[in-house]
């Protein structure tokens, strides 16, 4: 499955304790508060990504799943450095790119490409397809490239488009075709890792299947890895080798896809799986249904981020934030219920 290049043991992408915070407090006067006769100017910080660690091996598909506001898209954008990370480390093949500036990122971007959710907004409407798909490639080259038209054509053929599409503008395409153009653009530099942020969410289900098949075919052909971000459990189950579940900027559970779906451990993962509609099954009783809504990322709850919605929360959950700990079989869970201290029976064995 993976191409035998360089050190196969070393992960292609490694993220350590990544943190992304956004200051949304505005100007000093926006922040000014008078309460109890005292003047203060508190800051409002959105804690979008809170200490997330992950690794993607060569040829592997890591799926990140979570609901809106869980920080999965911010995570993707921070990894490609569309946002400057506020903490933690990002390593590409062992090279720390966390503090790379634009110029030093340029060679890294040859290894790292991104596909976006909205195929309407991610293509420049004033560029022709040939210019769109070749731009990353030309950026990565020192001088002029003589066979550029042939290269463009070859790329289009890879994603199922033809010569007649070369000189068209994005508005002349359907949503699925535009996503194909976005994929061709990412392919142009022959990257090692493609970060796909909800690449099929905006598409009709029949087109969604076409694009998923295309993504898997290309992976088999070129042997690259995906960091695949989606809210859709059926998609993530289909495409991923391993899955990470995010909630409120925290990674709450990771593990092999089969294990996560067969034996979800974190109460949030369980609730998420129970809520996903299944074809041909009637809406069941509300026993596993999680109530309430995701709390604000500005005032993170003390302790476990999920405890206010969790049916199993106990005193310790409010006191101490659980850390992601391995529970065997490649699975890791951030939940006090799955720690030796609260599972004396398990610890004894």
């Amino acid at each position: 499955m993976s191409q035998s290049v360089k050190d196969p043991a070393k992960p292609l992408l490694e993220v350590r304790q990544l943190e992304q915070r956004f200051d949304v407090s505005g100007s000093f006067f926006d922040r000014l508060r008078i309460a109890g006769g005292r003047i203060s100017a508190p800051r409002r910080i959105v804690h979008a990504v809170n200490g997330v660690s992950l690794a993607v091996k060569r040829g592997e598909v890591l799926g990140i799943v979570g609901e809106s506001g869980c920080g999965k898209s911010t995570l993707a954008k921070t990894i490609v450095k569309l946002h400057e990370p506020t903490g933690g480390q990002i390593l590409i093949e062992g090279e720390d790119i966390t503090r790379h500036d634009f110029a030093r990122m340029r060679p890294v971007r040859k290894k790292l490409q991104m596909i976006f959710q909205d195929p309407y907004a991610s293509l420049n409407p004033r560029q022709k397809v040939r210019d769109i798909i070749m731009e990353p490639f030309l950026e990565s080259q020192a001088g002029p490239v003589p066979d550029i038209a042939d290269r463009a054509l070859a790329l289009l053929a890879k994603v199922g488009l033809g010569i007649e599409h070369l000189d068209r503008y994005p508005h002349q395409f359907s949503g699925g075709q535009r996503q194909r153009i976005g994929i061709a653009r990412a392919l142009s530099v022959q990257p090692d890792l493609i970060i796909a942020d909800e690449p099929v969410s905006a598409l009709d289900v029949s087109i969604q299947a076409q694009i998923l098949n295309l993504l898997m075919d290309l992976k088999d052909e070129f042997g690259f890895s995906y960091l695949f971000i989606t809210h859709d459990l059926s998609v993530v189950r289909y495409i991923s080798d391993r899955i990470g579940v995010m909630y409120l900027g925290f990674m709450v559970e990771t593990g092999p896809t089969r294990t996560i779906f067969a034996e979800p451990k974190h109460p949030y993962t369980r609730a998420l799986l129970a809520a996903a509609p299944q074809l041909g099954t009637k809406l069941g009783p509300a026993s596993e249904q999680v109530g309430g809504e995701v709390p604000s990322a500005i005032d993170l709850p003390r302790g476990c981020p999920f405890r206010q919605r969790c049916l199993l929360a106990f005193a310790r959950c409010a006191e101490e934030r659980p850390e992601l700990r391995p529970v065997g079989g490649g699975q890791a869970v951030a939940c006090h219920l799955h720690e030796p201290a609260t599972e004396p029976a398990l610890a004894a064995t």
Partner: protein
Amino acid sequence: MSNNEQHSKPLLRVQELRTWFYTFGGLVKAVDGVSFDLAPGEIMGLVGESGGGKSMIGFSIMGLIDPPGRIEGGRIEFNGKNIAGLSEDEMRVIRGKEIAMIFQDPMTALNPLYTIGNQIEETLALHTALSARERRAKAIEMLHKVGIPQPEQRLSHYPHQFSGGMRQRVVIAIAMIAKPRLLIADEPTTALDVTIQAQLLRLMRQQVMENGTSMILITHDLAAVSQMADTIVVLYCGRIVEKGPAEDIIARPRHPYTRGLIDSIPHETAENDGPKQRLSQIPGNVPDIRKLPPGCAFAPRCSRASERCRMQDPVLMEHNAIAMGSGKLRPHAVACHHPLAVSP
């Protein structure tokens, strides 16, 4: 699941509905000859991809088709009376009271300048003779029913003070407060997260069952529909390609398009470590509805298409009747020259 099967008369009977739009780009036959019946208390799912015409059927029933569109022909019999082409004043009496609608985006369905209390009570003020105090009491009761905490305080809040899921609960409260006989929900949970979607689908089902309301659930999400609906109608390019009992449509689809839709959903492959199976996909794209091919609109994407499909429109025909658990016969109809065989 519809518990009112003794009623033989449908609440809603749509016959040969045609809603066309006269655009600069050409004639758009958004709805082109659609017929179906909806029994009292029945939940019907209207599914299809974008451009299928499913939303336009909802808008047509509500009388919300504006120029350049118009209802070109057909009947919409609600409770025995044709409401297609009623005047705006006549529709106002029905809308909100008899037929209510829930839209995809609760932020555009709610007026940002009025409190939600105002907006809930408006329906009662228009359609009932209740006093202001009674209306307020009812609004509080309704908010409580749809699961909004502290309803007394929340009445005086504005839509922007609610989250997306809470806003959609308010919209459901507004729709259900006058106890309508028909609820049309157009992609009510598409914009929401999956845990919130499950909460709201349960809430809507409980509300319609409590009041004996019939419901049309319009969505692209076959899985959500299969959880909720008694019957499913599948649309493609403004026409019904298949309709029948929900379980039957999902388990034994007969139209190649329905089959394709079901197979396109990534499903659990056999739980082994072997190579991933490719998803079966429908080739090509939904055609431009202004330039539909002659014959069956799905023929260019269909693996079963023959010369006949490219020449002659298939007619929606009841091909069998499946005995349901109750022993009642419900028809399963398909518009296809070469329908898929029923597997035994």
